């Protein structure tokens, strides 16, 4: 009996995690204009899914990600710039929603670190070659 209940629970949970409605029109359909589609695709790859945090909305199968893809395509098709769409979402979910961190005092270390590390590497190399030579 308990085994049966467990099996039923396992079967039942995934069914209830999603809605019954089909995905939004532009969630999985490309825009007719290839330039607009390319812009939308590029933006979708840089927006984070709110459900499967860590996946982009381009990669995620979550329904909310599908609806976000539809929103991105509709806004781009309506002539909005990708950066405006990104800003609109950032206004709602914070910088977290974008995979491209803004350049501001808080994120300066993030942007400067690769340069610093490259510089340190170059210094190390120079020391090494000098000693040999």
């Amino acid at each position: 009996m308990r085994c049966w209940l467990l099996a039923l629970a396992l079967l039942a949970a995934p069914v209830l995690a999603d809605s019954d409605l089909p995905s939004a029109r532009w969630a999985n359909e490309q825009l007719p204009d290839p330039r607009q589609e390319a812009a939308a695709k590029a933006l979708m790859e840089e927006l984070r899914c709110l459900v499967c945090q860590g996946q982009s909305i381009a990669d995620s199968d979550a329904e909310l990600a599908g609806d976000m893809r539809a929103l991105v395509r509709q806004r781009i098709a309506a002539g909005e710039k990708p950066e405006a769409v990104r800003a609109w979402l950032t206004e709602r979910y914070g910088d977290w929603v974008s995979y491209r961190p803004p350049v501001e005092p808080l994120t300066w270390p993030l942007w400067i670190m690769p340069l610093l590390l490259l510089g340190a590497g170059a210094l190390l190399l120079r020391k090494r070659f000098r000693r040999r030579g």
Partner: protein
Amino acid sequence: MSRYLRFVPLAVLLLFVVVVAWRLVMPEDTKVRSQMTGQPVPTFALAPATNGIPGLSSKDLATGQPRLVNVFASWCVPCIAEAPLLMELKRQGVPIDAVAVRDKPADVAEFLGRHGNPFERIGADDESRVQIALGSSGVPETFIVDGRGVIRYQHMGPIEPGDVPALLGEWEKAR
């Protein structure tokens, strides 16, 4: 100097253990909060989500008294868990409206028939547009909107019995 250097690996190990223990005891909060708290509700107008209950628009939320807006769905299991607590809030005089995310009229009616209807208005959000405009990242979520239509508070996840006093307090504060 070199006498102490040999303790470095031990120090690194200790640091590692401390960090792991800290995150085990206090797991990171992975909720993505709405940045709309303190902002006016974005303009929207949603059709009724089911027969006999009016739809919801942003105008309905600026009525001079604070209201709760519950983002829910009939297909969402935690929404069932919080249903009795929404009924309790309604009983205590809190006006509550709802946004039904990706839902069907018949399913909404069945959900309300089974778990009670604490809502005055329910808007149908078929493509999660209003949910996204509110900065909500899942169901269920509950927003408190003051009498001028400004979002004052966001509760993420199902309302649990212990959350009721806090919600009532925030609702009073928004008056």
